[in-house]
């Protein structure tokens, strides 16, 4: 039995979500709450297998809730169910440890599949919601790898990429050959084609991401 907590402040949506999620007899909705405050209370008092959470809540946002839970090491596997398909939301949810992100308007089977996947601690993202950050994570690309790919796609040489990132050409070469090996590619041209085709860098890369100190 997967015990689900629904955090959703719009009552009509909350009851709809509950009905959809309970279509799968493996799921049991243990509570439906509208706020960060009540959600935290529910998580403390009940065993929750999956947290299904809207972004905008009665007294804050899902991000506020996740931050509070993370601070106390309480966070259950989390699926964000949102009104918006903006990649910034998806990345922020991911940054705060959420495992999945689907739209409120998604078909029932997509929603149910996401609950199941997240319960098993897997990543579940609605179609079109796989951001470059997620893609990089799925592909096992580090931020530095992404910067290198961005440089290759922009037609820069290893020297130029190195100068841009403040590292030596050698370092860039190591990154490139690691990626070639990992994806079974023969050349940087193939790497560029693959990256472009699969949209590894779906949203623009912030140059700063690479310089960010670890742990922030």
């Amino acid at each position: 039995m997967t015990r689900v907590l629904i955090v959703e402040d719009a009552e009509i949506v909350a009851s709809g979500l509950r009905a959809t999620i309970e279509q799968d007899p493996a799921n049991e909705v243990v509570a439906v709450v509208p706020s960060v405050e009540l959600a935290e209370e529910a998580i403390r008092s009940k065993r929750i297998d999956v947290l299904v959470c809207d972004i905008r809540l009665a007294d804050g946002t899902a991000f506020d809730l996740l931050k509070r839970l993370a601070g106390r090491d309480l966070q259950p596997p989390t699926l964000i169910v949102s009104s918006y398909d903006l990649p910034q939301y998806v990345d922020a949810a991911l940054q705060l440890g959420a495992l999945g992100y689907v739209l409120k308007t998604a078909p029932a089977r997509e929603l149910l599949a996401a609950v199941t996947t997240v319960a098993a601690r897997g990543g579940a993202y609605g179609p079109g919601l796989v951001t470059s950050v997620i893609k990089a994570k799925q592909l096992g690309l580090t931020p530095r790898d992404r910067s290198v790919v961005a440089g290759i796609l922009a037609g820069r040489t290893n020297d130029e990429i190195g100068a841009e990132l403040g590292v030596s050409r050698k370092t860039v070469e190591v990154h490139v050959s690691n990626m070639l090996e990992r994806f079974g590619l023969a050349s940087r041209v193939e790497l560029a084609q693959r990256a472009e085709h699969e949209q590894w860098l779906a949203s623009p890369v912030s140059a700063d991401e690479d310089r960010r100190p670890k742990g922030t």
Partner: protein
Amino acid sequence: MKHRLAGVGLLLAATVAAAYVVAVVGWGQPEIEVRLTNDQPPTVVWVLPGGPVWERGIRPTQTVTSIAAGTSPADWAMTTTDGRIENTASDPAIQLAMRDWLPVAMLALILCLAAWLAIRRPQIATALAVLAVAISAQALLSADMPIRSSAAGAAAVTAPPLWLWLWSSRTARLRVVVSVMAGLVALVWLTARAAFPDLYDIAEIARAAAIIIGLLLVAAVLIEQRGWRQALLNLEGRRAADLFAVTAVLTVIVVVAVLTEVPLAALVLGGGIALLAYPAVRRRLGSTIDELVLSEVRGRASLAAVEDERGRIARELHDAPLQEVAAVIRDLDRHPGTEKEADMLRQAASHLRQVTTELRPPVLDDLGLPAALQHVVAQATAGSPGIEIESDITPVDLYSGRAPAQVELAVFRIVQEAVENALRHSGATLIRVVARVGPTEVEASVADDGRGIAAGAARAALQAGHLGLATMAQRAALIGAEFSTQPTVPHGTLVRVHWQAKR
């Protein structure tokens, strides 16, 4: 058009005033004045600094030992205790002409002020300017030769930049032209004076021209900077009027006292009488300035009202229809065979999302400025395939503090507008968005390699309220941030906003 007419009036009046100043500096003072009393030897009371007499070493307070009058003023000779000179330029006719000119010049100064006041009533300004020109022309024609040549020389060198100024709004170009001319004229003056003593008159005309050009330069810079206007806007209208009136009366008293023999007491009395008429002026001046201030305040208020309204509509769209559509879709889920209807509703929800996001991207409120700026860049990238958009934006950090909401909103709107401008108007191939965002300091810039904003075009757009430049500047002013637009090399525009928390 109205602005141009007012500008013409203002400039003509300013030219008349400048011509007066030149005349005073060049010829207004006698070279030397000697006090003659019955019981004491004559003494020097005034020597024109830098003039020929001055250069002979004659200074005020020296005693005159002899004065020899010749057949013409040029033949005069004077000996003081300190030395001997061959001639003086103490030509009584010139002094007389100057005295005649004084009322005209005063009138011109007053007209200057009046023209500025009437800047919102171009007809009055134009009428005043025509009057000023007529009086000045009359005075010039009846004046003696030195003044006429001075005015003619001044007119000859000031006409081209004036022309440029009036018929091309590119004041930047004007400043260059004026500066170069001032330099050239000053050079001519120095050379002529040093090398050809016979050309003294021409040299003096050149000096007059240099002074006029200098004055115009100052005026151009002042108008360009708009600093005085901002300074005024920071004062409450009537207090600014008081400041103006007192300064004007004091200036007139001092100028008249220095240049004429009217006793100071009489002048102070006159000033007092003038101030009696002040309440009427104060009302007029005060309300004009208040109007300026109010239009600024109204602009800000309407900006805030529009933002509030957009935020409210976005919130309502989110809270009601978007949620209701989602709820209906969830309901349809339990009724097989309704896939088509559910898909149509998903389409509707997608439209609602789009409208809400356009009104005010929800990520701005929920995640902060960096996320919203990323959104702007992503939208621009998706919407304009031919243009490369680079960004260097502080990463989203949900654990760090955030700048005040109105700062985030203002900077977001400024960047959004600047990117939009660059995409739409600049013809750029590369746009670069840079943002450093922290809780106490936010700096953002948008640079493009497009055709740039011509100085004149920017001014015209500001005045007409186009291009969003005025709004951007206003948004920045509202949060107390610096805002600037500048050309980039080799071509393009850089829009920058910088906010810092007050300590």
